[in-house]
């Protein structure tokens, strides 16, 4: 004879438990099912689509009348259970007593109603069952309907979105500073809020409800700060609490919820419990996945198997169409934890992984959640992600490609992967630009601006363009130097040499520039190439130089200029310092700053005053420091063996000689030197374009350092024995760079392009070539080593500095 099983509560957990039970064996138990709602089991988590109108009730029913009948379940829907007598093993209901051998309690939870005045008014609803949904839909049909949803959690927002979809004006009032604070961090919370606001839902965070006002029905919600929000209906969605009054009255153990063991048994071995009414190992659950697990465990144990409930990491998704968010695990900021964050502002994507001890412990995603399950698996498996950490955030498609092959890595990037951080350009943006007709790297740059700001993503942009264009793509080396030409920098320099082109108009004509006068990008480059190629012949075109090089001072953000006189090797005199101090006083210089290159910067000088201040500095024997130039900047030194007990050579003396030899020269970009007197390297020579470290036996010559946007240590070019050799090597290296590097490439970038071996061969191995390079450099210096300040202090280029007319004077007359 079959045993009797009574089930109290016809929700999702009990429905699933009966399913497991009956599928395994439908002869062991005769089941009686009590449900407070006048209907059977339906998928409660799909209430939101019913509210928004995307689904009908019929579509969310999980077990219909036929199912109950065919499985012989005695359904007692709408019949209230009033008590349980465990001694006599009967369930007491409105219509009498029902005996049981085993009892399954699945009474679920009740919505928490905050105890504010007015909570009993007509129109205050919870969001828990189909009845609530029907009531809400009735309000939505009234003219100009307004709703306030109290609670900005999962449930509240689903209600808000559904009501808005039904045409109501909806305001969400949330106690916490950002929405869904249990599932989302602040960033994702704000993205979600922005999306909801875009749909016309007003969101008020950090808002405490003071009371709900109205005569006999809801009229408005009043907040603590006095704000009043008109409403026909108020939905309370601030939380749920386990519903276990029956079990409590029957003397079963409880805490926050009805206490159950790993086998889903209460402290009475014949009474099981599942769902939102239970508390297992201090946790009450409100999401469906663990409830289904409980149902399965309870069914197994009712059948006599021993199975235990093991809570697993659960993830959350918001069921609002178009709001894609995903969260799982623990994403609180705890010391020792690290995070990987990916953002794409243009597409509203935010992804954050919280890493603890090389394992993912928390996931928050918004906008694109496709990789959520992949991350969640790693979280559940406690997988060590140290190996794939660098690319982890890009998800499985990236992890699949080999990071060694850049093209494969680019191919595997998802569309939303950020390519250009400066301009917020993703892979998808670039692919879209190409689909819309962009047919070259220059097109892609013009349309998207990717790689045109800091330029660090140029490689990635180029690879992506090549990949997307396929066979139509021209090698990046051949990419035009700007939009005015298809010729590369290298090509243009070759043509200047081969065709003996000696002016900017000549280059533009011969090489078929597509614009009449070039642009702000190509003209300075062309001017430099001509300056470098034809010293003594080419007449510098000031109008093709950036303003700093045209007026020989650095423009500041407010349009004033800075003045930096040269201090050879960082050595100055009391006389020079006095002259600088006097000039600063005379021209009301607001800021006097000591630079990193061992000299003094006078900041905030008016443009009109420049020739005069230069004249004063010239009078004290000082010349321009070229602090504004793509040319030789400073030679930083330590005091060397004259003073320092560790010094091996006269580092200051060599620094002065180098600076005297090199100053005034123009180059593709700025050029900085340093000479240290011993390997302690106080002058920081190992991050300069050219550095010298003195040792007992001579001089170590170092090249290709950087300490700016990129940080790079120098490579050893060679070691020489005398100062003369050091100077010759330095001049030859500078000339090789001047003749070959692309405009605006620092030496380290150029070396990376041509190869260190090639540079060494040209300068160290080929002594004749070195001498020829040095000779060409010093030949060029006779034309360029002239103080530009002196020329202008004596009236040269006056049009650059004086206003053409002063109408304020005319008006005053």
């Amino acid at each position: 004879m079959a045993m009797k099983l009574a089930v109290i509560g016809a929700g999702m957990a009990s429905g699933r438990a009966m399913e497991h039970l009956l599928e395994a064996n439908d002869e062991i138990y005769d089941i009686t099912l009590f449900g407070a709602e006048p209907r059977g089991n339906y998928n409660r988590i799909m209430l939101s689509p019913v509210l928004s109108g995307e689904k009908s009730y019929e579509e969310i029913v999980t077990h219909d009348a036929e199912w109950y009948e065919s499985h012989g379940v005695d359904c007692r829907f709408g019949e209230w259970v009033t008590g349980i007598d465990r001694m006599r093993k009967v369930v007491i209901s409105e219509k009498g007593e029902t005996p049981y051998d085993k009892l399954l309690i699945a009474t679920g939870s009740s919505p928490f109603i905050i105890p504010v005045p007015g909570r009993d008014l007509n129109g205050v609803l919870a969001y828990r069952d189909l009845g609530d949904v029907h009531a809400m839909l009735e309000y939505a049909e009234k003219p100009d309907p307004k709703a306030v949803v109290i609670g900005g959690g999962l449930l509240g927002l689903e209600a808000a979105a559904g009501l808005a979809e039904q045409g109501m004006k909806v305001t969400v009032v949330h106690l916490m500073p950002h929405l869904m604070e249990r599932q989302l961090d602040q960033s994702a919370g704000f993205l979600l809020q922005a999306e909801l606001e875009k749909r016309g839902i007003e969101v008020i965070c950090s808002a405490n409800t003071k009371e709900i006002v109205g005569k006999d029905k809801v009229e408005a919600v009043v907040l603590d700060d006095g704000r009043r929000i008109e409403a026909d209906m108020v939905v309370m969605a601030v939380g749920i609490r386990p519903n276990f009054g029956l079990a409590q009255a029957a003397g079963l153990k409880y805490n926050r919820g009805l206490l159950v063991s790993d086998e889903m048994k209460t402290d009475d071995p014949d009474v099981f419990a599942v769902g939102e009414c239970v508390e297992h190992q201090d946790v009450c659950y409100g999401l469906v996945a663990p409830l289904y697990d409980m149902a399965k465990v309870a069914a197994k144990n009712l059948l006599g198997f021993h199975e235990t409930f093991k809570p697993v990491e659960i993830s959350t998704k918001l069921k609002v169409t178009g709001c894609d968010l995903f969260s799982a695990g623990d994403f609180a900021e705890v010391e020792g934890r690290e995070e990987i964050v990916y953002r794409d502002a243009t597409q509203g994507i935010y992804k954050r992984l919280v890493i603890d001890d090389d394992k993912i412990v928390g996931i928050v995603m918004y906008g694109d959640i496709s990789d959520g399950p992949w991350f969640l698996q790693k979280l559940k498996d406690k997988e060590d992600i140290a190996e794939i950490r660098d690319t982890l955030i890009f998800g499985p498609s990236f992890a699949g490609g080999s990071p060694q092959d850049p093209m494969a890595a680019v191919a595997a990037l998802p569309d939303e992967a950020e390519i250009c951080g400066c301009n917020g350009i993703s892979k998808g943006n670039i692919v879209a630009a190409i689909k819309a007709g962009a047919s070259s790297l220059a097109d892609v740059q013009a349309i998207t601006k990717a790689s045109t700001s800091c330029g660090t993503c140029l490689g990635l942009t180029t690879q992506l363009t090549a990949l997307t264009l396929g066979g139509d793509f021209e090698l990046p080396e051949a990419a035009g130097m700007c939009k005015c030409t298809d010729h590369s920098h290298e090509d243009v320099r070759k043509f200047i040499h081969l065709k003996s082109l000696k002016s900017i108009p000549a280059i533009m004509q011969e090489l078929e520039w597509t614009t009449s006068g070039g642009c702000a990008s190509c003209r300075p480059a062309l001017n430099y190439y001509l300056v470098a190629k034809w010293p003594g012949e080419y007449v510098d075109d000031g109008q093709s130089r950036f303003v700093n090089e045209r007026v020989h001072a650095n423009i500041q953000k407010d349009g004033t200029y800075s003045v930096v006189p040269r201090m050879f090797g960082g050595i100055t005199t009391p006389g020079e310092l006095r002259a600088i101090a006097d000039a600063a006083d005379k021209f009301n210089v607001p800021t006097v700053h000591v630079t990193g290159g061992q000299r003094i910067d006078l900041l905030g000088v008016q443009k009109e005053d420049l020739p005069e201040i230069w004249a004063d500095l010239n009078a004290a024997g000082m010349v321009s420091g070229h602090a504004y130039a793509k040319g030789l900047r400073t030679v930083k030194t330590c005091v060397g063996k004259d003073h320092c007990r560790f010094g091996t050579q006269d580092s200051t003396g060599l620094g002065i000689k180098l600076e005297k030899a090199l100053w005034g020269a123009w180059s593709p970009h700025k050029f900085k030197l340093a000479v240290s007197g011993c390997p302690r390297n106080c002058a920081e020579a190992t991050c300069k374009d050219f550095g010298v470290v003195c040792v007992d036996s001579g001089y170590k010559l170092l090249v290709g350092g950087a300490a700016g946007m990129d940080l790079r240590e120098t490579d050893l070019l060679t070691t020489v024995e005398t100062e003369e050799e050091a100077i010759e090597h330095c001049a030859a290296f500078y000339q090789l760079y001047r003749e070959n590097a692309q405009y605006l490439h620092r030496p380290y970038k150029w070396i990376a392009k041509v190869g260190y071996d090639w540079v060494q061969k040209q300068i160290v191995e080929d002594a004749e070539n070195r001498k020829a390079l040095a000779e060409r450099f010093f030949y060029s210096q006779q034309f360029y080593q002239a103080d530009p300040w002196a020329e202008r202090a004596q009236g040269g280029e006056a049009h650059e500095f004086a206003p053409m007319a002063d109408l304020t004077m005319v008006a005053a007359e």
Partner: protein
Amino acid sequence: MSNFLDIGGLDDIPQQGARVVKTENGCIAVFRTAMDRVYALDDKCPHKGGPLSNGIQHGESVTCPLHNWVFDLNSGEAQGADEGFVQTYPVLVEAGRILIDRDSINAQVAAE
């Protein structure tokens, strides 16, 4: 009635160069193109106030020296994706002299 005022000779500005005219309402940049056309615009980029007279001129455009915004000298409109506008002033070149419409500058002052 316009009131054109002589502000200097065409040769006072180098080709593809610019000079400044001081007014009660701030500086006006006067540009001379490679083709000897002359334009007058406020010497102030709407982005961060950069002095446009110090920028590099190309064709009938100028690039601001501070952040590379590009403006059409004819219209004062920002080019490309940037959005902004620089006030322009009528100028004439007669017999090698540059004349600016004094009233348009005054009107600008009055409007502010």
